[in-house]
Protein backbone atom coordinates (compact mmCIF):
# COMPACT_ATOMS: atom_id res chain seq x y z
CA UNK A 1 0.00 0.00 0.00
CA UNK A 2 1.35 3.40 -0.84
CA UNK A 3 2.09 5.71 2.07
CA UNK A 4 2.59 9.46 1.81
CA UNK A 5 -0.18 9.58 -0.77
CA UNK A 6 -1.21 13.05 0.37
CA UNK A 7 1.36 14.43 -2.07
CA UNK A 8 -0.17 12.43 -4.89
CA UNK A 9 -3.64 13.63 -3.97
CA UNK A 10 -2.40 17.21 -3.78
CA UNK A 11 -0.70 16.96 -7.14
CA UNK A 12 -3.74 15.28 -8.67
CA UNK A 13 -5.97 18.01 -7.30
CA UNK A 14 -3.68 20.64 -8.76
CA UNK A 15 -3.79 19.01 -12.19
CA UNK A 16 -7.58 18.78 -12.04
CA UNK A 17 -7.62 22.50 -11.29
CA UNK A 18 -5.34 23.10 -14.29
CA UNK A 19 -7.67 21.06 -16.49
CA UNK A 20 -10.71 23.06 -15.37
CA UNK A 21 -8.82 26.28 -16.09
CA UNK A 22 -7.83 24.97 -19.51
CA UNK A 23 -11.46 24.10 -20.26
CA UNK A 24 -12.46 27.68 -19.50
CA UNK A 25 -9.54 29.17 -21.48
CA UNK A 26 -10.45 27.05 -24.45
CA UNK A 27 -13.78 28.81 -24.73
CA UNK A 28 -12.16 32.11 -25.62
CA UNK A 29 -10.51 32.79 -28.93
CA UNK A 30 -7.08 34.26 -28.40
CA UNK A 31 -6.80 35.97 -31.74
CA UNK A 32 -8.91 36.64 -34.80
CA UNK A 33 -8.39 33.12 -36.12
CA UNK A 34 -6.27 31.23 -33.67
CA UNK A 35 -6.90 29.22 -30.55
CA UNK A 36 -5.01 26.59 -28.65
CA UNK A 37 -6.37 23.16 -27.89
CA UNK A 38 -5.54 23.55 -24.22
CA UNK A 39 -7.39 20.35 -23.43
CA UNK A 40 -4.92 18.46 -25.61
CA UNK A 41 -1.78 20.32 -24.51
CA UNK A 42 -2.36 20.00 -20.78
CA UNK A 43 -3.24 16.29 -20.40
CA UNK A 44 -0.47 15.28 -22.80
CA UNK A 45 2.11 17.26 -20.79
CA UNK A 46 0.73 15.78 -17.56
CA UNK A 47 0.86 12.27 -19.02
CA UNK A 48 4.57 12.59 -19.76
CA UNK A 49 5.19 12.54 -16.00
CA UNK A 50 2.34 10.34 -14.79
CA UNK A 51 1.78 6.61 -14.67
CA UNK A 52 -0.62 5.05 -17.24
CA UNK A 53 -3.74 4.84 -15.08
CA UNK A 54 -3.37 8.41 -13.83
CA UNK A 55 -2.72 9.60 -17.35
CA UNK A 56 -5.87 7.85 -18.59
CA UNK A 57 -7.88 9.51 -15.85
CA UNK A 58 -6.64 12.99 -16.72
CA UNK A 59 -7.19 12.34 -20.40
CA UNK A 60 -10.72 11.10 -19.85
CA UNK A 61 -11.53 14.06 -17.61
CA UNK A 62 -10.22 16.54 -20.16
CA UNK A 63 -12.11 14.83 -22.95
CA UNK A 64 -15.33 14.69 -20.98
CA UNK A 65 -15.14 18.41 -20.29
CA UNK A 66 -14.52 19.06 -23.97
CA UNK A 67 -17.44 16.86 -24.97
CA UNK A 68 -19.68 18.96 -22.80
CA UNK A 69 -18.84 22.03 -24.85
CA UNK A 70 -18.68 20.27 -28.19
CA UNK A 71 -21.51 20.33 -30.66
CA UNK A 72 -20.28 17.51 -32.80
CA UNK A 73 -18.48 14.83 -30.91
CA UNK A 74 -20.29 13.07 -28.08
CA UNK A 75 -17.76 10.93 -26.30
CA UNK A 76 -15.17 11.27 -29.04
CA UNK A 77 -12.99 13.73 -27.15
CA UNK A 78 -13.01 11.65 -23.99
CA UNK A 79 -12.05 8.53 -25.91
CA UNK A 80 -9.40 10.26 -27.97
CA UNK A 81 -7.71 11.98 -25.05
CA UNK A 82 -7.91 8.89 -22.85
CA UNK A 83 -6.12 6.87 -25.52
CA UNK A 84 -3.65 9.63 -26.34
CA UNK A 85 -2.67 10.12 -22.71
CA UNK A 86 -2.30 6.37 -22.14
CA UNK A 87 0.02 6.05 -25.14
CA UNK A 88 1.95 9.14 -24.05
CA UNK A 89 2.48 7.74 -20.57
CA UNK A 90 3.58 4.35 -21.89
CA UNK A 91 5.95 6.02 -24.33
CA UNK A 92 7.41 8.24 -21.61
CA UNK A 93 7.96 5.22 -19.35
CA UNK A 94 9.55 2.97 -21.95
CA UNK A 95 10.73 4.71 -25.07
CA UNK A 96 11.22 8.44 -24.87
CA UNK A 97 12.79 10.83 -22.40
CA UNK A 98 10.72 13.08 -20.21
CA UNK A 99 11.92 16.33 -21.69
CA UNK A 100 10.57 19.34 -23.54
CA UNK A 101 11.31 18.04 -27.02
CA UNK A 102 9.36 14.84 -26.37
CA UNK A 103 6.41 16.79 -25.00
CA UNK A 104 6.36 19.17 -27.96
CA UNK A 105 6.49 16.31 -30.46
CA UNK A 106 3.73 14.43 -28.65
CA UNK A 107 1.48 17.49 -28.44
CA UNK A 108 1.99 18.22 -32.13
CA UNK A 109 1.27 14.63 -33.08
CA UNK A 110 -1.85 14.51 -30.88
CA UNK A 111 -3.10 17.85 -32.23
CA UNK A 112 -2.62 16.87 -35.86
CA UNK A 113 -4.21 13.47 -35.31
CA UNK A 114 -7.16 15.12 -33.60
CA UNK A 115 -7.56 17.62 -36.43
CA UNK A 116 -7.39 14.87 -39.02
CA UNK A 117 -10.01 12.69 -37.35
CA UNK A 118 -12.24 15.66 -36.50
CA UNK A 119 -12.17 16.95 -40.04
CA UNK A 120 -12.78 13.52 -41.53
CA UNK A 121 -15.76 12.61 -39.37
CA UNK A 122 -17.26 15.82 -38.01
CA UNK A 123 -16.22 19.02 -39.73
CA UNK A 124 -16.90 17.64 -43.19
CA UNK A 125 -20.57 16.94 -42.46
CA UNK A 126 -22.75 19.00 -44.75
CA UNK A 127 -19.77 20.54 -46.55
CA UNK A 128 -19.28 19.80 -50.23
CA UNK A 129 -15.87 21.41 -50.59
CA UNK A 130 -13.38 23.81 -49.15
CA UNK A 131 -11.97 21.41 -46.57
CA UNK A 132 -8.40 22.20 -47.54
CA UNK A 133 -9.10 25.87 -46.97
CA UNK A 134 -10.53 25.05 -43.55
CA UNK A 135 -7.49 22.97 -42.70
CA UNK A 136 -5.01 25.59 -43.86
CA UNK A 137 -6.82 28.58 -42.43
CA UNK A 138 -8.22 27.23 -39.20
CA UNK A 139 -7.13 23.82 -38.00
CA UNK A 140 -3.45 23.91 -38.91
CA UNK A 141 -2.83 27.28 -37.19
CA UNK A 142 -4.63 26.01 -34.11
CA UNK A 143 -2.52 22.84 -34.05
CA UNK A 144 0.70 24.85 -34.43
CA UNK A 145 -0.37 27.30 -31.76
CA UNK A 146 -1.14 24.41 -29.45
CA UNK A 147 2.34 23.01 -30.07
CA UNK A 148 3.89 26.35 -29.18
CA UNK A 149 1.72 26.59 -26.07
CA UNK A 150 3.04 23.23 -24.86
CA UNK A 151 6.40 24.83 -23.94
CA UNK A 152 5.23 26.88 -20.95
CA UNK A 153 2.70 24.24 -19.96
CA UNK A 154 5.43 21.57 -19.90
CA UNK A 155 7.58 23.62 -17.57
CA UNK A 156 4.65 24.36 -15.27
CA UNK A 157 3.83 20.65 -15.02
CA UNK A 158 7.48 19.75 -14.53
CA UNK A 159 7.81 22.29 -11.77
CA UNK A 160 4.65 21.00 -10.08
CA UNK A 161 6.06 17.48 -10.22
CA UNK A 162 9.37 18.48 -8.72
CA UNK A 163 7.79 20.46 -5.90
CA UNK A 164 4.86 18.23 -4.96
CA UNK A 165 6.16 14.70 -4.58
CA UNK A 166 6.57 12.27 -1.71
CA UNK A 167 10.03 12.29 -0.17
CA UNK A 168 9.99 8.55 0.04
CA UNK A 169 7.48 6.07 -1.31
CA UNK A 170 7.01 3.04 0.90
CA UNK A 171 5.30 -0.04 -0.45
CA UNK A 172 3.86 -2.57 1.94
Amino acid sequence: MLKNNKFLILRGGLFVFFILTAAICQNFRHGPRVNAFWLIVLPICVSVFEKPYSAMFFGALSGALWDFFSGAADGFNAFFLCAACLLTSLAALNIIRKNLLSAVILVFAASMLYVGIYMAFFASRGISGGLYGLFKGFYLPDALFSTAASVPVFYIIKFSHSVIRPKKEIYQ
Partner: protein
Amino acid sequence: MLNFFKSAKFKIIAAVLTALIAGMVFAAVSSGSTSPLTNAAGFVFAPLENAGVYIASKVSGFALSFASSKYYQKEIEKLELQLEEYREKLVGYEEVKKKIELYEGFLGLKENNPDFDFIEATIIGRDPADVFRSFVINKGTANGIKINSPIISGKYLVGVVRKVNLTSSVVYAVGDPKVKIGAYEIKSREDGYIEGTAEFAFSGECRFTELPKDTAVAEGGIICTSGIAGVYPRDLIIGTVTEVRDGDTGLSSYAVVKPGIDYASLTDVFVITSFLGQNE
Protein backbone atom coordinates in the same frame (compact mmCIF):
# COMPACT_ATOMS: atom_id res chain seq x y z
CA MET B 1 9.24 119.22 33.55
CA LEU B 2 8.83 122.56 31.75
CA ASN B 3 11.97 121.80 29.80
CA PHE B 4 10.28 118.63 28.38
CA PHE B 5 7.41 120.65 27.07
CA LYS B 6 9.85 123.06 25.48
CA SER B 7 12.04 120.32 24.01
CA ALA B 8 12.08 119.33 20.34
CA LYS B 9 10.91 115.81 21.16
CA PHE B 10 7.64 117.07 22.61
CA LYS B 11 7.07 119.29 19.61
CA ILE B 12 7.51 116.34 17.25
CA ILE B 13 5.15 114.10 19.24
CA ALA B 14 2.55 116.87 19.37
CA ALA B 15 2.82 117.41 15.61
CA VAL B 16 2.32 113.72 14.87
CA LEU B 17 -0.67 113.41 17.21
CA THR B 18 -2.21 116.57 15.72
CA ALA B 19 -1.78 115.18 12.19
CA LEU B 20 -3.41 111.90 13.18
CA ILE B 21 -6.36 113.65 14.80
CA ALA B 22 -6.72 115.91 11.79
CA GLY B 23 -6.73 112.86 9.49
CA MET B 24 -9.42 111.22 11.62
CA VAL B 25 -11.54 114.35 11.56
CA PHE B 26 -11.07 114.63 7.81
CA ALA B 27 -12.06 110.96 7.29
CA ALA B 28 -15.11 111.39 9.54
CA VAL B 29 -16.22 114.54 7.72
CA SER B 30 -15.65 113.30 4.14
CA SER B 31 -17.79 110.09 3.98
CA GLY B 32 -16.28 107.04 2.20
CA SER B 33 -12.74 108.38 2.34
CA THR B 34 -9.87 107.28 4.45
CA SER B 35 -7.48 109.39 6.29
CA PRO B 36 -4.67 110.86 4.15
CA LEU B 37 -2.20 109.34 6.56
CA THR B 38 -3.74 105.89 6.04
CA ASN B 39 -3.42 106.37 2.31
CA ALA B 40 0.16 107.46 2.68
CA ALA B 41 0.94 104.54 4.97
CA GLY B 42 -0.69 102.15 2.57
CA PHE B 43 1.25 103.60 -0.32
CA VAL B 44 4.49 103.06 1.57
CA PHE B 45 3.76 99.71 3.09
CA ALA B 46 1.78 97.98 0.26
CA PRO B 47 4.88 96.62 -1.54
CA LEU B 48 6.16 95.35 1.77
CA GLU B 49 2.81 93.77 2.47
CA ASN B 50 2.78 92.05 -0.94
CA ALA B 51 6.27 90.78 -0.35
CA GLY B 52 5.23 89.45 3.03
CA VAL B 53 2.22 87.58 1.59
CA TYR B 54 4.38 86.15 -1.20
CA ILE B 55 7.03 84.90 1.18
CA ALA B 56 4.39 83.48 3.54
CA SER B 57 2.74 81.49 0.74
CA LYS B 58 6.04 80.04 -0.43
CA VAL B 59 7.05 79.05 3.04
CA SER B 60 3.72 77.41 3.76
CA GLY B 61 3.88 75.45 0.47
CA PHE B 62 7.42 74.36 1.22
CA ALA B 63 6.48 73.26 4.69
CA LEU B 64 3.39 71.42 3.38
CA SER B 65 5.41 69.34 0.94
CA PHE B 66 7.61 68.10 3.73
CA ALA B 67 5.06 67.73 6.43
CA SER B 68 2.17 66.24 4.41
CA SER B 69 3.49 63.23 2.50
CA LYS B 70 1.41 61.11 4.82
CA TYR B 71 -1.54 63.36 4.11
CA TYR B 72 -1.12 62.89 0.37
CA GLN B 73 -0.65 59.16 0.84
CA LYS B 74 -3.96 58.97 2.65
CA GLU B 75 -5.62 61.08 0.00
CA ILE B 76 -4.25 58.80 -2.73
CA GLU B 77 -5.50 55.69 -0.97
CA LYS B 78 -8.90 57.27 -0.46
CA LEU B 79 -9.12 58.27 -4.12
CA GLU B 80 -8.00 54.82 -5.27
CA LEU B 81 -10.74 53.22 -3.20
CA GLN B 82 -13.23 55.63 -4.70
CA LEU B 83 -11.97 54.87 -8.19
CA GLU B 84 -12.30 51.14 -7.55
CA GLU B 85 -15.84 51.66 -6.31
CA TYR B 86 -16.75 53.68 -9.40
CA ARG B 87 -15.19 51.04 -11.66
CA GLU B 88 -17.32 48.34 -10.06
CA LYS B 89 -20.41 50.49 -10.45
CA LEU B 90 -19.51 51.08 -14.08
CA VAL B 91 -19.21 47.34 -14.72
CA GLY B 92 -22.56 46.79 -13.03
CA TYR B 93 -24.06 49.64 -15.04
CA GLU B 94 -22.80 48.18 -18.32
CA GLU B 95 -24.23 44.77 -17.45
CA VAL B 96 -27.58 46.25 -16.57
CA LYS B 97 -27.53 48.29 -19.76
CA LYS B 98 -26.83 45.15 -21.78
CA LYS B 99 -29.66 43.30 -20.06
CA ILE B 100 -32.04 46.18 -20.71
CA GLU B 101 -31.14 46.18 -24.40
CA LEU B 102 -31.70 42.43 -24.51
CA TYR B 103 -35.06 42.66 -22.81
CA GLU B 104 -36.13 45.63 -24.93
CA GLY B 105 -35.54 43.52 -28.02
CA PHE B 106 -37.38 40.65 -26.39
CA LEU B 107 -40.29 42.89 -25.42
CA GLY B 108 -40.59 44.27 -28.91
CA LEU B 109 -40.62 40.79 -30.35
CA LYS B 110 -43.18 39.58 -27.80
CA GLU B 111 -45.45 42.52 -28.53
CA ASN B 112 -45.32 41.73 -32.24
CA ASN B 113 -45.63 37.98 -31.66
CA PRO B 114 -47.80 37.28 -28.62
CA ASP B 115 -47.90 33.58 -29.50
CA PHE B 116 -44.15 33.10 -28.82
CA ASP B 117 -43.06 31.35 -25.63
CA PHE B 118 -39.50 32.22 -24.61
CA ILE B 119 -36.90 31.02 -22.17
CA GLU B 120 -33.81 33.06 -21.44
CA ALA B 121 -30.50 31.20 -21.66
CA THR B 122 -26.83 31.97 -21.20
CA ILE B 123 -24.00 30.71 -23.37
CA ILE B 124 -21.75 28.56 -21.18
CA GLY B 125 -19.32 27.09 -23.69
CA ARG B 126 -18.02 27.10 -27.22
CA ASP B 127 -16.31 24.31 -29.11
CA PRO B 128 -12.86 25.56 -30.16
CA ALA B 129 -12.64 22.88 -32.83
CA ASP B 130 -15.83 24.02 -34.55
CA VAL B 131 -15.18 26.79 -37.05
CA PHE B 132 -18.93 27.33 -37.53
CA ARG B 133 -19.40 28.76 -34.01
CA SER B 134 -21.60 26.22 -32.32
CA PHE B 135 -22.11 26.82 -28.64
CA VAL B 136 -23.72 25.41 -25.51
CA ILE B 137 -26.48 27.07 -23.49
CA ASN B 138 -27.43 26.41 -19.90
CA LYS B 139 -30.98 25.21 -20.51
CA GLY B 140 -32.12 21.73 -21.49
CA THR B 141 -35.03 19.32 -21.43
CA ALA B 142 -35.68 20.18 -17.81
CA ASN B 143 -36.63 23.67 -19.03
CA GLY B 144 -38.81 22.50 -21.88
CA ILE B 145 -36.28 22.85 -24.67
CA LYS B 146 -36.54 20.47 -27.61
CA ILE B 147 -34.45 19.77 -30.67
CA ASN B 148 -35.00 22.35 -33.43
CA SER B 149 -35.97 25.08 -30.98
CA PRO B 150 -34.97 28.41 -32.58
CA ILE B 151 -32.51 30.63 -30.73
CA ILE B 152 -32.88 34.39 -31.02
CA SER B 153 -31.22 37.54 -29.76
CA GLY B 154 -33.57 40.47 -30.01
CA LYS B 155 -35.16 40.23 -33.44
CA TYR B 156 -32.29 38.24 -34.93
CA LEU B 157 -32.18 34.52 -35.48
CA VAL B 158 -28.99 33.15 -33.90
CA GLY B 159 -29.29 29.44 -34.50
CA VAL B 160 -31.16 26.28 -33.68
CA VAL B 161 -30.91 23.66 -30.94
CA ARG B 162 -29.57 20.41 -32.31
CA LYS B 163 -28.69 18.46 -29.18
CA VAL B 164 -30.45 18.58 -25.84
CA ASN B 165 -29.30 17.27 -22.48
CA LEU B 166 -31.10 17.59 -19.21
CA THR B 167 -29.57 20.95 -18.27
CA SER B 168 -27.79 22.09 -21.40
CA SER B 169 -28.25 22.23 -25.13
CA VAL B 170 -25.96 22.51 -28.13
CA VAL B 171 -26.83 25.20 -30.64
CA TYR B 172 -25.72 25.29 -34.26
CA ALA B 173 -25.36 28.83 -35.51
CA VAL B 174 -26.76 30.37 -38.67
CA GLY B 175 -24.09 29.74 -41.25
CA ASP B 176 -23.43 26.17 -40.14
CA PRO B 177 -23.60 23.85 -43.17
CA LYS B 178 -25.73 21.46 -41.14
CA VAL B 179 -28.44 24.13 -40.75
CA LYS B 180 -30.72 25.11 -43.62
CA ILE B 181 -33.24 27.88 -43.07
CA GLY B 182 -36.17 28.82 -45.30
CA ALA B 183 -35.92 32.57 -45.90
CA TYR B 184 -37.07 35.45 -48.06
CA GLU B 185 -35.89 38.93 -48.92
CA ILE B 186 -38.31 41.50 -47.60
CA LYS B 187 -38.23 43.95 -50.52
CA SER B 188 -38.32 41.60 -53.51
CA ARG B 189 -40.22 38.87 -51.59
CA GLU B 190 -38.05 36.23 -53.27
CA ASP B 191 -37.76 32.91 -51.44
CA GLY B 192 -34.70 30.82 -50.95
CA TYR B 193 -32.61 28.97 -48.38
CA ILE B 194 -29.90 30.08 -46.05
CA GLU B 195 -27.01 27.65 -45.85
CA GLY B 196 -23.42 27.79 -44.68
CA THR B 197 -20.34 26.77 -46.63
CA ALA B 198 -16.67 26.26 -45.88
CA GLU B 199 -15.95 29.26 -48.10
CA PHE B 200 -17.56 31.62 -45.59
CA ALA B 201 -16.50 29.77 -42.44
CA PHE B 202 -14.08 32.48 -41.31
CA SER B 203 -16.22 35.49 -42.15
CA GLY B 204 -19.34 33.97 -40.61
CA GLU B 205 -21.38 34.79 -43.71
CA CYS B 206 -23.76 32.42 -45.42
CA ARG B 207 -25.46 31.92 -48.75
CA PHE B 208 -29.02 32.78 -49.67
CA THR B 209 -29.49 30.26 -52.44
CA GLU B 210 -32.14 29.15 -54.94
CA LEU B 211 -32.46 32.60 -56.43
CA PRO B 212 -33.26 33.02 -60.14
CA LYS B 213 -30.59 34.27 -62.47
CA ASP B 214 -32.33 37.62 -62.86
CA THR B 215 -32.96 38.02 -59.18
CA ALA B 216 -34.17 41.31 -57.82
CA VAL B 217 -32.31 40.77 -54.56
CA ALA B 218 -29.64 43.42 -54.23
CA GLU B 219 -26.96 44.53 -51.83
CA GLY B 220 -28.46 45.85 -48.62
CA GLY B 221 -31.52 43.65 -48.80
CA ILE B 222 -32.76 42.20 -45.52
CA ILE B 223 -33.25 38.46 -45.25
CA CYS B 224 -35.87 37.07 -42.87
CA THR B 225 -37.14 33.62 -42.05
CA SER B 226 -40.06 32.52 -44.16
CA GLY B 227 -41.61 30.12 -41.65
CA ILE B 228 -41.64 27.23 -44.13
CA ALA B 229 -41.78 23.76 -42.53
CA GLY B 230 -42.65 25.26 -39.16
CA VAL B 231 -39.14 25.05 -37.72
CA TYR B 232 -38.55 28.79 -37.48
CA PRO B 233 -41.20 31.43 -36.93
CA ARG B 234 -41.75 33.82 -39.77
CA ASP B 235 -40.02 37.22 -40.01
CA LEU B 236 -37.04 36.68 -37.76
CA ILE B 237 -34.18 38.70 -39.20
CA ILE B 238 -31.21 36.64 -40.39
CA GLY B 239 -28.95 39.28 -41.91
CA THR B 240 -28.27 41.65 -44.78
CA VAL B 241 -27.14 40.99 -48.33
CA THR B 242 -23.57 42.08 -49.02
CA GLU B 243 -23.19 40.71 -52.54
CA VAL B 244 -25.09 38.84 -55.26
CA ARG B 245 -23.17 36.25 -57.26
CA ASP B 246 -23.86 33.82 -60.05
CA GLY B 247 -24.47 30.25 -58.99
CA ASP B 248 -22.01 27.42 -59.66
CA THR B 249 -24.06 26.09 -62.55
CA GLY B 250 -24.70 29.51 -64.09
CA LEU B 251 -28.45 28.91 -64.06
CA SER B 252 -29.17 30.51 -60.74
CA SER B 253 -27.81 33.11 -58.37
CA TYR B 254 -27.11 33.35 -54.72
CA ALA B 255 -26.63 36.21 -52.30
CA VAL B 256 -23.95 36.47 -49.68
CA VAL B 257 -25.62 37.30 -46.39
CA LYS B 258 -23.89 38.74 -43.36
CA PRO B 259 -25.69 37.72 -40.15
CA GLY B 260 -26.85 40.52 -37.93
CA ILE B 261 -25.30 38.94 -34.84
CA ASP B 262 -21.73 39.17 -33.58
CA TYR B 263 -21.28 35.64 -32.25
CA ALA B 264 -18.02 36.41 -30.51
CA SER B 265 -19.69 38.87 -28.15
CA LEU B 266 -22.97 37.01 -27.69
CA THR B 267 -23.58 35.92 -24.09
CA ASP B 268 -27.36 35.80 -23.53
CA VAL B 269 -30.00 34.48 -25.87
CA PHE B 270 -33.67 33.48 -25.89
CA VAL B 271 -35.02 30.08 -26.86
CA ILE B 272 -38.43 29.98 -28.51
CA THR B 273 -40.07 26.91 -27.04
CA SER B 274 -43.35 27.26 -28.90
CA PHE B 275 -45.01 29.50 -31.46
CA LEU B 276 -48.06 29.45 -33.67
CA GLY B 277 -47.43 27.27 -36.69
CA GLN B 278 -44.62 25.25 -35.14
CA ASN B 279 -44.03 21.92 -36.90
CA GLU B 280 -46.87 22.52 -39.38
